[in-house]
């Protein structure tokens, strides 16, 4: 059972547009990570957020962890074709070591 819901499931946009992906849960997570996965490959970590309200920026990507540590968002500015892929959020629940619960995924396609 997936405890993390992502929206939207699919997103097709043109190069230069901005977008936001949401990750929501009813559970509290001690940390939350965002991954990008390309076809035929494993997920690759983009960022880890651990503090409620935390905002991290990675070039054109901005990640935010909700104050209650139940939700997160990923904002991409001026999307490029190289941003195409499956974006996954993943939470580590308190007391579960580093076991990750992954979200349902958002498939992003950026076209020229």
């Amino acid at each position, binding site marked *: 059972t*997936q405890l993390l819901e992502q929206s939207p499931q699919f997103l097709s946009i043109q190069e230069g547009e901005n977008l936001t992906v949401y990750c929501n849960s009813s559970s509290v997570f001690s940390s939350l990570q965002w991954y990008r996965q390309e076809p*035929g490959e494993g997920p690759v970590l983009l960022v880890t957020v651990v503090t409620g309200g935390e905002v991290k920026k990675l070039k054109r990507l901005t990640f935010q962890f909700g104050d209650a540590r139940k939700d997160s968002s990923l904002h991409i500015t001026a999307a490029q074709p190289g941003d195409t892929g499956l974006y996954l959020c993943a939470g580590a629940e308190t007391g579960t*070591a*580093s076991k*990750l619960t*992954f979200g349902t995924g958002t498939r992003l396609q950026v076209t020229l």
Partner: protein
Amino acid sequence: GAGVSQSPRYKVAKRGQDVALRCDPISGHVSLFWYQQALGQGPEFLTYFQNEAQLDKSGLPSDRFFAERPEGSVSTLKIQRTQQEDSAVYLCASSLFPGVGETQYFGPGTRLLVL
């Protein structure tokens, strides 16, 4: 440097066959995880090792699934009497230390198709 490797990359099995999937983690990594990823979904946790000890196997879907890591490095996920619903990508990940927030490095996965 070498990342996490998995073999085979693709496996086709007839229903009822046994399969064994191998994971070579990054050298020296203490923690090793197995995940199952169905088509179009996010990965789902199967099991977790800290060195050779299997500390969490709560995600294994049935007693047909068995994992081992006898020397604390290479791990094998075995599926007995495969069923069509076992078709998925099986991902292995390792991290240097156990603990929340540790980066997990994923292998490319083994795509299993059960006919």
